[in-house]
């Protein structure tokens, strides 16, 4: 067991190192001269002398390898550099926004998992009812419509039409509802398809028939017994859905003016504020790698078959 964990740790370190190189190259090799674009942000066409001075100040005139090493050392010290746009430390700004994004992602995960479980249980109890068929239909529709469109629909109907919830921002408990729905729906559809099929399969297994013969109420059979048997695939998929939530947050946060890391990344990309873009990619990538690593370790702990491999 210790050996397995040790091996996983070494693998994780290598993965993170590779990741750091990719993240660094991704932003360093992006076309365009950030120094000039920075100076042009005020609408002024800068003089070549201004551009050269700023390039030197930002260290953009040093060789790539040298820049990578000093960047990596800084990152390890928790220094993600300073924003090109306003020279403030990037780490503080990103960290301040992480909880805001986690709040949205958490609510969206709740939407995804909650809706998937409720709807699949409903379908398991009444597989041939009209509602069950409608659920199947809606699932397909939701998968086919991009979140951006769902978000605009929700805004125009619920926020503008009914004025029931805010159109955006993160003020108040109601503000999270529409963005969380927008962000969580595609995940809900994915999980629902898996869970619904697995649940139907589980209900065809002998234990379900035994439960029925024993006189157990169908609700208890589905919720307590069959759901547990049907869960593994959906639980694995939940990890992937969680990872997708972070990526999807970029679009949804922009649409709903949700002040999280995704919104920060979008405005940074628009301004070509490379240190912020770099920090965003680094933080989300590291988070994804860590989540997947934790999932793998958990799987190792839970399932002896994985340990033996």
């Amino acid at each position: 067991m210790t050996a397995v964990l040790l091996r996983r740790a070494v693998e994780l370190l290598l993965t993170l190192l590779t990741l750091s190189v990719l993240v660094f190259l991704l932003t360093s090799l992006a076309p365009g001269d950030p120094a000039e674009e920075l100076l042009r942000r005020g609408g002024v066409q800068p003089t070549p002398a201004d551009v050269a001075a700023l390039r030197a100040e930002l260290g953009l005139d040093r060789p790539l390898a040298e820049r990578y090493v000093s960047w990596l050392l800084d990152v390890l010290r928790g220094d993600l550099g300073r924003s090109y746009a306003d020279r403030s430390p990037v780490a503080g700004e990103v960290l301040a926004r992480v909880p805001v994004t986690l709040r949205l992602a958490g609510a969206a995960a709740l939407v995804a998992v909650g809706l998937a479980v409720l709807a699949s249980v409903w379908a398991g109890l009444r597989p041939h009812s009209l509602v069950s068929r409608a659920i199947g239909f809606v699932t397909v529709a939701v998968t086919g419509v991009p979140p951006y469109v769902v978000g605009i629909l929700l805004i125009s109907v619920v926020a503008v039409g009914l004025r029931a919830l805010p159109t955006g921002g993160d003020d108040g408990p109601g503000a999270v509802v529409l963005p969380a729905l927008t962000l969580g729906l595609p995940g809900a559809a994915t999980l629902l398809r898996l869970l619904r099929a697995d649940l139907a399969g589980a209900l065809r297994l002998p234990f379900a028939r035994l439960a029925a013969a024993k006189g157990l109420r169908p609700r208890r059979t589905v919720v307590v017994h069959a759901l547990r048997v049907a869960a593994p695939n959906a639980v694995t998929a939940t990890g992937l859905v969680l990872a997708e939530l972070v990526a999807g947050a970029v679009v949804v946060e922009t649409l709903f003016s949700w002040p999280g890391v995704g919104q920060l990344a979008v405005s940074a990309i628009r301004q070509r504020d490379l240190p912020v873009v770099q920090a965003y990619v680094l933080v989300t990538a590291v988070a994804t790698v860590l989540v997947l690593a934790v999932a793998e370790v958990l799987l190792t702990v839970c399932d002896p078959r994985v340990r033996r491999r």
Partner: protein
Amino acid sequence: MLLAFLGAVLAACGAQNGAQDSVQNSVQDGGQNGGQDGGQLTLAAPRDLVAGPQDPYYTHQTLRVWEPLVTVDDRLRPVPALAASWESAQDGRRWTFTLREGVRFSDGTTLTAEAVVANIERFRRIAPRPSAFFSLDAGMEAAYGKLTGVRAEAGKVAFTLEEPVADLPGRLAGFFSMVQSPKAFAASGDFAGGPVGTGPYTLAEWVKGQRAVLTANPHYHGAAPAYRRIEVRVIPDANARVAALQAGEVDGLIDKGALLPGQVAAVAADSAYRVVRSPSVLTHYLTFNASREPFSDPRLREAADLAIDRRAIAEKLLAGTARPGGAFLSPAFGDLADPGPAPACDPARARELVTAAGAPAEPVTILVSSAETGQFPYTDVAEVLRAALEQAGLPAKVSVVEATKSVMEAGDYDLFLSAYSVPNGDADYLFRRFLRSDAAWNVERRLGYRSPEFDELIDRAATTTDADARRDLYHRAQRLLAADRPMVPLAYQDNPIVTTAKVGGVTQNAAYVVDLGKLVPVR
């Protein structure tokens, strides 16, 4: 694992919500009662109008936290702000600004000539310094000319310059003559705390990238503003901005690009809103690469120019938010813009010219920056240009690129579609930075425009203090550009902004500055 994660997130949620309840209440008051009780107003802008302590200015001029010596009107003419008047001597080598009396900073201290001098000296010390709004140039020379000194003399501010500058007030207008209390600055030139200005508002709260809250400045020298508290939210997404307006969460949308051209008609049709469209300093230009074939041939540049239907671009594609381009300087420059005949649209003549010059074998490339396609329908405009060129016999293709700079520096384009603006009334700026034979834009972007005659005209204009003579020189320079066609104006863009019908007193100058201090509730 999942449950534990969710639990942690929910706990965090609860804590955050609790902390934000008080903020939320006040915000909702601002949004929903703003127009009625006259006390509070909520606006939204596409970008953060506060840039923070490391920016040369801290806030945008629009927020009216600080005031400049000189500002511009809706025709980009320099008009008094903190300077009550000004005069020049020695052929424009010496300028003296007389300050308005009885002005105090928001910390209660009095505005003095010494304070103004301290601001100018800070600018010179920290330049070059990028800004979210208007970057400070190296040595400030481009803005002020060669400044040999700035002194406080008997309560007035005197600038002395090595060479004559004909329009110093116009060049200073806006950001470059910002005045804040010298106590607001740290020794490094950064801000020590918040901004301390003389405007009708002070910055009470700022959440970066989200909102700025302004409260009335008790020491303001003019009439007290009608709204004692204004919140300006940052909503970068254009659809989200209009949704917030329609849901009644904000009372208006301000700043550059507040409404996209395609959104104006729908909002203006609703009597609950008032759209203010005023001319802006933004002009859509088409830049020719005359350093290579085919547009090194002036006949083909003329053909391309004649093929363009500027009216269709302004009225259809830009949805009537722009006017067809004519002179190089937009009408926002007032009488400096050449009143000569507007460029014609003559496809038949364009075809003749192409036949005479010989059509290129390879299609010409119309280059568009992907960053600009979000603000204006540039992919549509480029498509229309492409179709027009092809009709004239010039095969063309559209290329939307992220980093236009490297493409242009490699000379790998034929036409570049882009919008430019000037932040003050400085006409010299556009000519000198873009088209003079040694201009950075002209040389590095391979425009290939070399005209000693043009260079001489703008050099003379820059030092000519007689207004009429200077205007004539600029008219001649523009006629030269109209004939040579290194860059042709396609359309002059308005900047549409909107408020609910409950907000009155909305005015916007050509540099997108809305005077928040003049907004009043409509009963």
